[in-house]
């Protein structure tokens, strides 16, 4: 989401133009983060629709024979890790706003770790599901959900990791000045990216709550 300022040579600009470009850039990150959420909402909505469509159709009484359920221990583990990521993102963001980059980085690395654990659990869960993928409507939608969740976890963990890696290099580029305090465009871009990411993580935590309830609790 930071792919806007330093990626190409720029024409010479007046200070007003530079400010205009910077505001447009920050605005792009802000609105890009929100639009990304909208995209993801429709993606998740298609899964939710499929779940309830097959559930209400119950073709051949094969929506969910014997109320078979995916392993709830894995489900709780994955869900907890995603919630932890979300919490760490919000905690880190609040610390960052108060000027502590280090706290944000620690929270961020915990989030990356949680994301990787969730990813590993999500993949490993395939070995433990007590049903064949095509054995029922529930089984099919569960496999679809798992694959989509793997994609989601890769995206969020990648986003968080790249933001963290950027924060280290940025400090060097800013000559030791904290990215929180600097008014340099890279620092502003970094902060906007973190804000957009945190917002997205909040959305993912909410969506995961709904999906967890659908697939493991209902």
């Amino acid at each position, binding site marked *: 989401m930071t792919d806007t300022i*330093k990626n190409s040579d720029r024409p010479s600009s007046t200070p007003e133009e530079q400010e205009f470009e910077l505001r447009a850039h920050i605005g792009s990150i802000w609105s890009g983060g929100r639009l990304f959420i909208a995209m993801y909402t429709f993606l998740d909505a298609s899964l939710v629709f499929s779940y309830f469509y097959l559930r209400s159709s119950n073709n051949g009484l094969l929506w969910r024979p014997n109320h078979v359920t995916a392993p709830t221990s894995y489900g709780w583990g994955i869900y907890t890790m995603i919630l932890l990521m979300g919490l760490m993102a919000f905690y880190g963001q609040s610390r960052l706003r108060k000027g502590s980059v280090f706290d944000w980085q620690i929270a961020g690395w915990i989030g990356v770790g949680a994301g990787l654990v969730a990813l590993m659990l999500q993949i490993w869960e395939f070995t433990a599901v007590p049903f064949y993928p*095509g054995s029922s409507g529930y089984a*099919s939608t569960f496999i679809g959900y798992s694959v989509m969740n793997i994609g989601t976890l890769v995206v969020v963990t990648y986003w968080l990791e790249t933001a963290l890696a950027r924060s280290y290099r940025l400090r060097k580029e800013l000559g030791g000045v904290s990215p929180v305090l600097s008014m340099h465009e890279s620092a502003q871009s970094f902060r906007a990216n973190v804000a957009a990411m945190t917002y997205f993580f909040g959305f993912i935590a909410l969506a995961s709550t709904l999906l967890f309830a659908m697939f493991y609790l209902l």
Partner: protein
Amino acid sequence: MTISAERPTEVESSPVSPVAIPEKRGWGSGWLSQHLGTAILGGFLGYIFGHWLGNYIASGYPYIANSGQNSVADLLALLFMVVGWLLGIGALNYPLAKMVGREAKSEVEYTGWSKYVRYNLDHKVVGLQYVVGVLLFFFTGGLLAMAIRTELLNPTTHVFSADTYIKIVSEHGTIMMMMATSVVVGPLGNYFVPLMIGARRMAFPRIEAFSFWTFLVGYAVIFSALPYGGFPTGWTGYAPLQTQAGPGMISYLFGFAIIGVGMMTAGFNIAITIVNYRAPGMTWSRVPVFVWGILSTAALLVLATPVLFSAGLFGILDKTVQTAFFVSEHGGSSYLWENLFWFFGHPEVYIMALPGFGIIGEIIPVFTRKPLFAYRIAAAGMIGVALLSFFVWQHHLFQSGIDPDMRPLFMLTTELISIPTGFIFLVGMGTLYRAKIRFEVPMLFCMAVYFNFLIGGISGVFLSDVPVNVTVHGGFFVLSHFHYTIMGGLIFAFFAGLYFWLPKMTGRTMNKKLGLWHFWTMFVFFNLTFFPMFIIGLLGQPRRVFTYAKNLQSWNDFSSVSAFLLGASFLIFIANLMWSLFIKPQKSPANPWDSLGLEWQTATPIPRHNFDRIPVIMNDPYHYSEVGAPALANFGDGGTVHSDSSTVSSDPVE
């Protein structure tokens, strides 16, 4: 924040992030760097690796060993082909560098033809890349259409088998629909939106380039269906035929998913650019109507395409890991595919229509020298169409997959959408009213859009009514209707846009005589091809069937011969393109149509960053023939553009 008309002295960029002077390179140098050749190589190697991996992983599974068809290998081959392609073109350089915290390096600025075969971040280059890309899709799909019409010359003597015929129809439909989603947004949207809103760049240039290279590899993926044996479902991919189909179906599903990623990223970037990068003074009421068309389309691309993506994913899972999303016997439902597909598929119709409306709304004021009639209604109409398009998908299920009691509701919503569409149509009529029209080639194409879309639109209103829909469903009437809207509307509008803007894009004038030949042959033979299909449809000929009743042969022959001549009309376009750009190029005037559009006020060729100074917009660009209208824009050097003159003047700002 505004930019004042008085410009302070220039300053260099921040010393902390020094601006690298781009290295200039020309054709023939730098071939060790990434370009189309390395992308093809990467795709080829990826394909081989994926196939090997799939065989390694899955060939031992009983269902694969028993069927003799390793769909996992087929899928992984295509997946790694795409990854290899993206690695080869350099699309993944930056995402990988970000993992170690690096920001993007300054781009090497390639000159000449070389830049068009690379991962280029200049929206103008991407726009031209898209022109070539969509023409590739269009002519491939067109050749398949010729094959279809050849088969339909005779109901008893066959060129193809029934099986081959349906696969040709399917490939034609899919390629054309994939092309149509990007035919305006890709080439003209990417090229002109920043210029029209006074921006120096796109918001996310890498995402923009990514969208093009994904779109292009999508062509290879969908075309790979043919060597895999094709797919028999038509472009709609209905289950249970989808589930029963061979490995070509994987190409269809994965191809749609990949093109879907390209569509989402293209829409995302353009929407964000329009929202954030409009020049100072470019209020929403001054945004060109073409930009409104692209913005509403981008919104649909971003929101509807994820559903197509997940439908494709579910279909792929059904084919590879044996889930049963669309298999009724195992707890799935074939109607689920219909719902997911059409939830995307009907907004898709407007993804194709809205940019066309935008183009003609932009062009007709230029050739009538009148302000665009009811500008705000045009913009509102586009937003209305975009919103309502999410509430009509069930009319595709009138025959199956819907509770009959729900039909009136979706009949109503479908009829409702004709109201904002009618607004847009009437805006055009209002602009044409009592105008002294200059019948240049782009304007002729615009007039043709109104003619064709009237037929396509009115037949659409008929089709929204349940009784008519049930009667003509699955026949040539429907086929004719959507060709009138998509080809008669969008493709004619695309050519209007091409003839209108190519002089700006290339700096060359298109040959008018050849342009007129192209227009008239295309217009006449389009109508002679597709209008008889309404009659054929009403007489009961079904779609996707390679034979028909003997008494329909004369109608079909008439349609086929017209289709061949329609195909030939595009050769005139190609000849014109070759003649005007390469054989006998003539330099175009700076503003050949005397347009007030901001895009025409830049130098030709357009500078790398579009505008030396970010313009300050002072008016909308439709005040044609209005004496005393305020200046349109201030370009920062004291130059302004007035509505009664399309040239940049040096008058001070009024």
